[in-house]
């Protein structure tokens, strides 16, 4: 034995290089965004197993091929799980290669979705199946469509998209991203969406939980990453969405045309390619333009950021505008103004 598990710091270039070499040998791409990395060293200070984490996900898990069957992955996952718990994360997710899915299954992880070259897993028994069980209760007869939105905040552009999809279908399942990822809190985003679509009786509002465009399924949506990572995350995200669409009988997904955000544009392209394979048509709707200006949540945030509230105002439906004019919104407006980058990358 004589193996030692140690944290590997970002400045530790010698050992970082060893980790990179090990992962490369095992055919795993090193994630750009990692917050913690550890490794198991043998007696000769060679790294024979490694694992990392970012947020509530475990990443870059690898064991040297000549050290399989020694329970090294068990040690790595134990250690990373302990850290996750210490940070208050009892729901943990991971991506892995299909060959490793069984091993991680033995370590307490359950499969959520699978692609040819990747498996997405969670540590909660009945997590995703429980989510689907709740969703299926809202399944409706007739043509159903879905929209996934961040609504950060809900604009007249969102309203336009929702109206269009609700008009072309019997039912519209509207998924709101549950992830907190900006100055506008989730509860506010949700309230503005609910108020903004209150008059449309065939719209059903859902939380996306951790299963659609979350930091677990789609980390590169929130943090800058390379295109290969974005595309891989997008594909897996859509594999999960495919299951959601299936239980709801959703046959079409609507999205607004994207011109400015790079990651959303890549996501749209991936949807156009992947959704039809899963029996879901992808409908891309040109953005609403008002007075020659494209309406988007990014533009609203930018306008607030630049202190041009009147410019933001004409892009917002009455309910959202009422919020931004209220005292409640003051700290949020302050936070948006303090941001370096108000637009989505």
């Amino acid at each position, binding site marked *: 034995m004589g193996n030692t598990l140690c944290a590997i710091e970002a400045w530790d270039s010698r050992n970082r290089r060893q980790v990179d070499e090990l992962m490369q040998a095992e055919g795993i791409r090193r994630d750009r965004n990692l917050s913690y990395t550890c490794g198991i060293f043998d007696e000769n200070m060679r790294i024979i197993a490694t694992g990392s984490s970012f947020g509530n996900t475990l990443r870059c898990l690898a064991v040297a091929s000549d050290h399989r069957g020694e*329970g090294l992955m*068990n*040690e790595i*996952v*134990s250690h990373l*799980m*302990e850290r996750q*718990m210490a940070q*208050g994360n*009892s729901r943990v997710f991971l991506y892995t290669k299909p060959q490793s899915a069984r091993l991680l299954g*033995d*370590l*307490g992880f359950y499969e959520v979705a699978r692609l040819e070259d990747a498996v997405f897993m969670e*540590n*909660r*028994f*009945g997590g995703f199946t429980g989510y689907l069980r709740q969703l299926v209760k809202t399944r409706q007869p007739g043509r159903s469509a879905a929209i996934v939105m961040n609504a950060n905040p809900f604009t007249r552009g969102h309203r336009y998209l929702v109206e269009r999809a609700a008009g072309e279908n019997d039912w519209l399942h509207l998924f709101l991203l549950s992830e907190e990822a900006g100055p506008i809190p989730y509860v506010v985003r949700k309230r503005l969406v609910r108020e903004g679509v209150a008059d449309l009786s065939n719209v059903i509002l859902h939380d996306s939980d951790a299963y659609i465009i979350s930091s677990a399924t789609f980390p590169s949506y929130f943090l800058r990453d390379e295109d290969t990572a974005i595309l891989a995350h997008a594909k897996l995200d859509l594999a999960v969405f495919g299951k959601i669409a299936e239980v709801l009988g959703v046959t079409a997904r609507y999205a607004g045309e994207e011109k400015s955000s790079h990651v959303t544009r890549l996501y749209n392209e991936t949807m156009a390619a992947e959704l039809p394979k899963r029996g879901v048509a992808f409908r891309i709707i040109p953005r609403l333009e008002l007075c020659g200006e494209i309406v988007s949540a990014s533009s609203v945030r930018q306008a607030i950021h630049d202190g041009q509230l009147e410019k933001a105002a004409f892009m917002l439906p009455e309910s959202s505008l009422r919020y931004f004019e209220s005292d409640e919104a003051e700290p949020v407006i302050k936070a948006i103004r303090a941001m370096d980058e108000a637009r989505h990358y």
Partner: protein
Amino acid sequence: MEIVKPAMAGTLESSDAQIMVEPGENGIELFLKSSVMNQYGRQIKATVLETLERLGVKNARVTVVDKGALDCTLKARVECAVFRSADASEKDIPWGGAVR
């Protein structure tokens, strides 16, 4: 004892078990995964439930990933997870009482 916050004890190494307890509402919900499920699944379940009962845990979501732990190990890991969840420090632990 009440499960206040999620807590974990134990490891995934051979002959150990990783126990996670979380607040729950519908009595004890036990999720068990074991490398010796077929041979000892029932006994592991009984040991975990008995330990929880002794500690007076009425509502909890308990996830066990067992790697062939002996009963005494299971018991110790469950106790530890419960105490961590309730933020019990050494002086609060009922040595000689529920823990013996």
